């Protein structure tokens, strides 16, 4: 399984797509970070004239929260591009049969590919380490919020990767897998935008509801259960889909 994960991770870096995704991700997060810091610094500077106008302005709510909020959208766009090729490429290139006949179980294949993709996501997030480092250089941020923010991005990305991997197992066309995954992820993200009731159905289903507390540095068991159930179900569905190739 780990061998498959390593192979998957290496294959991402051996293609232009992996590097393009990494460069694009770092560029966009970098731009958002610089703009965010600039806006915050401007607001603080404005407070010299009236300190009470900016009372309560803090790095957690006014810098890190918007930044990680923007990052969730970037992750939402990037991860379908990673997951689209996980099985679609194998189906299109007729290498899936080879993989299925190799001496590894379907479960190991699914988990290996998933871990490989999550590994790449972790590398993406790790490459943004300069952001918290620079923040510690210029201010005193709350480490809990930083940990929560990165955990939120990792869980959100993993959930979308699991879903995207499942869809990619249903089609040999990577564009179809990308489109369906992104549409579903976006729908699950925005579905709760106009809903306030925390007990409402859409808030329970929506993925954005379950990342917002994490970004704020609050880890709720409900959120962890949501992502575990979400990822678990799609991994199982992918497993079932691959199994179906065996008896066809």
């Amino acid at each position, binding site marked *: 399984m780990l061998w498959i994960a390593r192979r998957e991770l290496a294959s991402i870096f051996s293609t232009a797509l992996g590097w393009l995704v990494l460069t694009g991700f770092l560029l966009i997060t970098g731009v958002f970070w610089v703009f965010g810091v600039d806006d915050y610094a401007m607001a603080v500077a404005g407070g010299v004239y009236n300190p009470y106008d900016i009372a309560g302005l803090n790095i957690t709510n006014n810098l890190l929260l918007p930044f990680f909020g923007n990052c969730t959208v970037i992750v939402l766009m990037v991860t379908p591009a990673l997951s689209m090729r996980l099985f679609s490429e194998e189906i299109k290139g007729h290498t899936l049969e080879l993989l299925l006949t190799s001496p590894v179980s379907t479960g190991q294949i699914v988990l290996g590919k998933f871990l490989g993709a999550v590994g790449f996501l972790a590398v993406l997030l790790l490459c943004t380490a300069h952001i918290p480092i620079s923040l510690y250089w210029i201010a005193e941020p709350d480490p809990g919020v930083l940990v929560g923010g990165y955990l939120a991005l990792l869980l959100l990305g993993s959930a979308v990767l699991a879903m995207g991997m499942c869809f990619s197992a249903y089609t040999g066309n990577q564009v179809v897998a990308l489109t369906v995954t992104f549409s579903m992820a976006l729908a699950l993200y925005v579905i709760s935008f106009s*809903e306030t009731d*925390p007990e*409402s159905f859409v808030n329970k289903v929506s993925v954005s509801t379950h990342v917002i507390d994490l970004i704020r540095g609050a880890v709720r068991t409900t959120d962890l259960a949501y992502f575990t159930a979400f990822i678990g179900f799609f991994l199982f569905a992918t497993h079932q889909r691959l199994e179906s190739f065996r008896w066809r």
Partner: protein
Amino acid sequence: MAVMARFAWAFGLAGAVAWIGALSVAYVVGSWSGPPTTLGVLGTALWVAWVAFDARSLADTMSTRHFRLSSGSVALQAVALLVAIVAYAVVDDRLDRTFDLTGKRAHTLSTQTVSVLQGLDAPVDVLAFFPEGSAEGLAFSRLITLYTQASANVRLEWIDPLAHPVRARTERISGPTVVLKQGDREERLEIDFTETNLTRRLVLVQSDTEHHVCWSTGHGEADPDGDATPDGYGAAVLVLEGLNYRVSRVSVAGEGIPGDCEVFVVARPQHDWMPSEREALAAFVGGGGDALVLLDPIAETPGFDADLDRFGVTVFDDVVFDADRSRTVAGMEGTLAVHDDGVLAHPVTSPLAGAVVLPVARSLDLAVRDGLLAKELLRTSTQAWGETDLTDPDVKPDPGLDRTGQLLLGVVVEVVDPDVLSIARPAEGPVDPGAPDAGRLVPPDWKGVPGGRIVVVGDGDFGSNQALAWGSNQDFFLNLFAWATGEEEQIGDRPDLAEPLDLSEVGSAMLCLVSVVFVPGAAMLLALVTLLRRGLLAKGEA
């Protein structure tokens, strides 16, 4: 029968349509009662009919190998989905806990709130009226989740007033509101949906404690019900009433000061007090009561002002100006902004985040007396003076006439020994209607009780409708009452000030370079190297 079997698929389709309709209506209405249930039953009936009419064809299909294997897989996936949903629902319903990663414990309820929640002996219904998607509602939903996690006695009902106008009308909702109900008691929160305010309401909804504030009338005092004029105190009194204070008007000349008054307010008297009224006020404070005296510089109350001397407070007949620009409100000459070292340490003033803005103030002084414990609350900068000649258009300190330097604007005096107040007693025996009886409004059974306090502020407008929202005036006003009635937990907290960034121009440029150029550039460079190497390797192999 053959015809029915041929068109049986239509029943299946109609059943699906009926179920989609049922789900849609249930989602929109927010309930399964009525049409959604009817549609659901209809849909199920149509599916049963479909199976009944097309049983043979369905049986043929189900007997194929492909169907057996694929349907088994679909069934397994459905079961997996069900397990995932149930597992999530169980955690959400029974095991929902929050682990706070933040250093400032931003997602942890204060110990006071936790103890209040643990002390709930009966359920409290929290009705949250917020329009869908409102920012206030979202913030409140995060807060109330912590409350529901901490106590099963907090029962939350979320109501969109736009979707349920009848319910909103019944509960008299005019904007975002949180209504707390326990039995017949009810508390409402309409602004500042913070933990402090919510917990305060939670305490109040369980408490029968009501503080009685008496508001002096009969000398042209500020109107406690006046909410239409800038100088009325209607807005301030409304806030007080929202915090379980009952404010009643009292005419001292007619009835004296009722014994159940916890705080007696003299707000901006315009006409002088009779000696008997002044004795009644002194007796009230000497008897352990708390009085709040807000004075107006322009008022003609020489007797009342002079009588404050028995508390060690001297009131000067002047209007205070401050030459320190930072202590005045720009464009409003004579309006003082008291802040920093002008606000002296005291439970009432220490938590204030902003300036206390006094529109027109007169200066005070304090004398040290045995039996009295005096403390300064507010004062000007060292560049202030008390202008005595208001007819002179050139406002500047007149040496020898005006008091100059750091002037007192607010004081608090605690009576340790009531005898130092020399309170007159009611005359005994037959009273001559023509003779003055200074002690006639003092209760016959009056007994001195140490601990009475009097707060004197040299401005009577800071709590008016016009000035209440200026600076920290509202907090100062409310803190005075909270302190006087022993409700220390209601004294406002100092909000966090802005967290700065230590970012120079060079630092800003470096940050930009690293984030936008160096790091993405390094990734791009590595990409080029990898791809070039791969290309060279491929060429070599060829």
